Structures are given as structure tokens and as C-alpha cells.
């Protein structure tokens, strides 16, 4: 029997039971859709975070207090708020800056959660204490006013640059510049406002930030040392060299356990691998629904074989071989799962586009589409074989007698 005839036969059988065929396909459609869309969530997150890191610049080293597992393979970006144990001194920042090539710039940093008040308004904020150079490390853009200056930092002035969310929560429609802002019972003056970082994961947090000079932060919160030091170097390829220099410098006064140096590359690869696991896990969960869809196909095909017992008898009596009958039913189940798989791929791509818009990153991943479609075809064969074999094995005399 020709291939074309077999396909025609399968499609006509499917058309004859439209509702049932559609419901059977629905299992596969949902399975493929779920795999593609959920994988796109993982991929999107990964791409988003990579982009965020790259926007800060891939050529930044982080010096963190204490020892962070392995060779600076730590995942913790923000050390605990209680970094009393930190031995990173302000003076190191200048020393690192003076190291020269390939090191370009350095800034100390402290991050403390807190609340800010203006008159009766109050909002939760993240206080970032730094030097004005922070703009070179974190892509901050000043919207109105200005960032605080080096001289304000040296003088420990109580000036603040506030994120857009802080501005709207505290001042509403008022102009925040030159207004006071109360942080930890101290009065600060707003000298600048920042542009929104967008609605991304880190963006929301950034919009709630208030930047103050590092010296002011240390005085206000009675902290002697730094939470971390960010070091910028000239070129991505110089990461190891820069790391080595910074380590060498700090080792002169600090013990090995007192600090760790790592760069974005390591941090990024750690986060990437976590997200990779997440993506695979999401895909795996979705794959279960694909499996359930396959079982649905098998169920319907078994029903179909029983229903069409007499038809099988007729076909055998006019010359169908066992192989012809097997192919007929197998093609039917593969056809169901391929059409279901194709619809699932289309919906999955739409889902990916939506996810991409929500995360604002490219969430497309070809492998999940190929895998989901391949698995759906495979499912059609695997779960189609048992019913088809059952049909092929039917005894013609028995089958013709079947009512």
C-alpha cells in the first residue's frame, strides 16, 4: 500500500471524528505549548540578567568581605546588611585606584535597607552609600538636578540622589529638588533625581534607591568599613590580571579569609547555571503534560481500534496485510500528534513573544521548539504502536463477526 494512500486514509478517519480528534490533539497542543513557553521563561530570565550585567559592564571586579565559597564563586551579591565583620577600609579604594593599568576606577559601596520620610509620607528604600563614581559602575542616569560631588563626599554632606519611585511616593507631584528627606532620623537634602531603570527585576529595586555619599552613610549608620569595593578595569580580557593585582594589593594588609575578589564573569556564570537548571526543570515539568497528552492519544486509538474492529476485518478480507493495518493506525496517531505538535509550536511561539515582552528580553529558544516538536512526534509513535499492533493482530474471522 502506498504512503500517500495511508496518509489519506488516516486523515479521512480523523476528519470523520472531528471533535474527538481535536480533544485528543489538545493534550499534545498543551504539552508542546507548555514546554516551549516555560522554557522561554527560563531563557528570557537568563538573557535579561545577562543583559543587565552587560549593561553595567563586564569589566567590573567585586571585592567582598570574608571568604565566599571556593575561589570567589560566591553567589551573594549583597552581603548581609550586618557587615560589621568587613575589613575593607575606605583607604583601599584610593590604593586600588592608584594601581594603574589595567585598573581604571574604583568605588566603595554600602547598601542598607531603610525607610525615608518627607512630612507625612513614608516609603521603603534601599540606601546606597558610594562615591560619585558609582555612575560609572551602575548605569544610573540623572533626570533632574545632579549627582553628589566628590567634595560633598569628602565633607560628609547630607545630600541624597533619589530614585523615581521614592520621588513619587514622597513628593507626589511636587518638585523634590532642594526638599528635605529624612533617612534614619537625619535630614538630607535632595540634590538630584534618577531616571527609571524600567520594570525589570533589578529595575524595580533600583527605582527605590537613594544614593548618598559613602562617608555620610558611614557616619549616619555608624559603620567603619565598606560592604564591597567595585573595581573597573579597561578590558574584559584583563579580568585575571586586574583580579591578580587587586588581590596582591589587599593581601599585603588583609588575610586571605578577609576578602574575596570576583568578577561579573564568575557571578554571571553562576547565575546562568542556576537559571539553566531552572529552565530544564520548567521544561521537565511541562514535558509531563506532553506525556499525558501521549497517553490521551493511546487511549483514543485503543477506543478507535475497538470501534473499528469490523472495518479491520473487512480490510483484511480484501487483502490488507497485518503491516497495512499497523501502518494505518500508526500513521493516524502520528498525524494526530504532529498536527497537535504544530499547533502547539505556533501557540508556543506566541507565548514566547508574550513572555519576551513581559520580561523585556529575548526569550526565544530554538532547541525547546525542536525538542517539543520532536518529542510530540515520538510520543505519537510510541503511544500509537500498542493500539496499532493490537489492530494488526486481530483475527479476521473474529473481527468480521464483531458487532
Amino acid at each position, binding site marked *: *500500500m502506498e504512503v500517500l494512500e495511508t496518509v489519506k486514509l488516516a486523515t479521512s478517519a480523523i476528519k470523520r471524528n472531528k471533535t474527538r480528534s481535536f480533544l485528543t490533539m489538545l493534550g499534545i497542543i498543551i504539552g508542546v505549548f507548555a514546554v516551549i513557553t516555560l522554557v522561554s521563561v527560563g531563557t528570557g530570565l537568563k538573557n535579561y540578567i545577562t543583559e543587565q550585567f552587560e549593561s553595567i559592564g563586564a569589566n567590573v571586579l567585586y571585592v567582598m568581605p570574608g571568604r565566599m565559597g571556593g575561589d570567589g564563586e560566591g553567589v551573594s551579591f549583597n552581603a548581609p546588611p550586618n557587615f560589621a565583620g568587613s575589613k575593607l577600609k575606605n583607604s583601599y579604594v584610593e590604593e586600588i585606584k592608584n594601581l594603574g593599568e589595567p585598573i581604571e576606577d574604583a568605588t566603595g559601596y554600602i547598601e542598607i535597607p531603610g525607610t525615608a520620610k518627607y512630612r507625612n509620607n513614608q516609603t521603603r528604600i534601599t540606601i546606597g552609600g558610594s562615591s560619585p563614581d558609582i555612575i560609572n559602575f551602575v548605569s544610573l542616569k540623572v533626570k533632574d538636578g545632579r549627582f553628589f560631588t566628590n567634595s560633598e563626599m569628602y565633607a560628609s554632606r547630607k545630600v541624597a540622589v533619589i530614585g523615581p519611585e521614592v520621588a513619587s511616593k514622597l513628593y507626589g507631584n511636587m518638585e523634590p529638588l532642594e526638599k528635605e528627606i529624612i533617612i534614619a532620623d537625619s535630614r538630607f537634602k535632595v540634590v538630584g533625581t534618577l531616571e527609571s531603570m524600567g520594570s525589570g527585576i533589578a529595575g524595580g529595586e533600583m527605582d527605590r534607591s537613594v544614593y548618598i555619599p559613602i562617608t555620610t552613610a558611614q557616619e549616619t549608620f555608624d559603620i567603619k568599613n565598606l560592604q564591597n569595593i567595585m573595581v573597573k578595569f579597561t578590558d574584559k580580557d584583563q579580568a585575571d590580571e586586574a583580579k591578580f593585582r587587586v588581590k596582591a594589593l589587599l593581601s599585603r594588609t588583609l588575610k586571605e579569609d578577609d576578602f574575596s575578589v570576583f568578577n561579573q564573569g564568575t557571578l554571571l556564570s553562576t547565575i546562568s547555571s542556576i537559571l539553566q537548571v531552572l529552565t530544564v526543570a520548567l521544561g521537565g515539568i511541562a514535558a509531563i503534560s506532553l506525556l499525558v497528552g501521549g497517553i490521551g492519544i493511546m487511549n483514543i486509538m485503543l477506543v478507535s481500534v475497538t470501534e473499528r474492529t*469490523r472495518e479491520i476485518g*473487512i480490510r*483484511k*478480507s*480484501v*487483502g490488507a496485510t497485518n*503491516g*497495512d493495518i499497523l501502518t494505518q493506525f500508526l500513521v493516524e496517531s502520528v498525524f494526530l500528534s504532529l498536527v497537535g505538535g504544530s499547533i502547539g509550536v505556533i501557540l508556543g511561539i506566541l507565548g514566547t513573544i508574550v513572555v519576551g515582552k513581559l520580561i523585556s528580553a529575548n526569550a526565544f529558544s530554538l532547541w525547546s521548539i525542536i525538542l517539543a516538536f520532536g518529542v510530540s512526534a515520538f510520543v505519537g509513535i510510541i503511544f500509537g504502536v500498542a493500539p496499532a499492533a493490537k489492530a494488526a493482530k486481530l483475527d479476521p*474471522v473474529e473481527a468480521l463477526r464483531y458487532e
Partner: protein
Amino acid sequence: MKTVNMELSGVSKVYEMGDIEVKALDQVSLRVNKGDFVSIVGPSGSGKSTLMHILGLLDKPTSGEVILEGRGVSFNNDRELAKLRNQKIGFVFQSFNLLARTSALDNVELPLIYSGVPSKERRLRAEKSLFEVGLEHRLEHFPSQLSGGERQRVAIARALITNPSIILADEPTGNLDSKSGKEIMDILKSLYQNGNTIVLVTHDPEIAKMAKRIVRVKDGKIMEE
């Protein structure tokens, strides 16, 4: 000397029903010559259906040999068996056994699909076959839109389309009123007159008489009249 189309030699068929063995056919030998018209009669349970199924290569004998056009049939080779059923045997059943929701033309074409005939030629031959049984005005009708007599004529057209060497009709008039039954018998008779070999199973003595030979089956054994 006459050419032998189909021959059963010492064929037995034993069914096992739990511990009891039921002998449906007991050492049956039967010869069907080319151009023969044989009626097989007998009460229900006599084994005539089993005989018919073995002649139609649908059932496998427990022992004995089936010889079709001079060659022994190997019942263990599914492909070979299917090919013989397809090319050498035309089956007409009591309950028509047409595919539901499938046009008369498509039903008649069915055996040709399994012998790999291209679709254009299939269509032509199916039209011709339906024309021969007088159904040229019913080509696109589904079985449910046809009368019993018409359905059986579609089944005959399907049996004829491969020019089989033997036509097996199992109670072809059993589900029909007497008028349609007569029409069907007229068709079978004219097929016989055109040189086709026909084996007919019936319990109706009047119909049996139309055949050239009558074979009586009783308790798994046959007797020729």
C-alpha cells in the same frame, strides 16, 4: 480434464473451548473446478461457515492442505495470505461488510488500494464494476443511503473488481427480502454463466438448487449430492 481452482485435502479444524475440543471440520476434502457453481448447505453449527472461512483463507486449518491454483497455501505467511485474498478471492458476506460512511466507489476500490493500483485506474475499474451490477447511478452514495439489495450489489462489485479466481458468497441473500434476493441470485447466476467460479453457502434449498453442485455439511463432514 477440468482445471482445479481450489482444493481442500483432508482439512480439519478443531476449536478448543476450555477442556473440550470441538471438531468443526473433520477430514474434509473438496474440489472446486474452474467455472464451477457449488452450493454448500447444512444446518447452523454444521461447520459450513468454517469451511467458507478456510476457503476464503481467513481461517487457518488445524491440519490438512489447501491448494489454490495448483499451489499449497502457507497459512503462516501473512503477506502471502493477504496477497492471495486480495487477488484470488472475492468475498460476499451475508451482512454486506461495507465500510460505513464511505462511498460505493471507495468501497469497491478498496481491494485495489491494497494491490497498489494507481488511483485513476482504480476509479475506472470501480466504475466499471459498479456498472456491471447495475449501480452506475449510485457511485457516490454511502451504504446507509442504499437499500439492502443495492448494498449487496456493491459488495459483489467489490468482490469482482480484482477478477478473482473464486467468488465466495456466504448467505448473500440472508439479510434481503425475496425480491432483492432474487436480483442478487440473478447476478451470481450470470457471473457463473460468464465463466466465474462461485461457491455459495446457503440454508435455503431453493437457492441451493440454482447451483450446479450441492455439497451438504453435517457434523464437520461433507457429502456431495
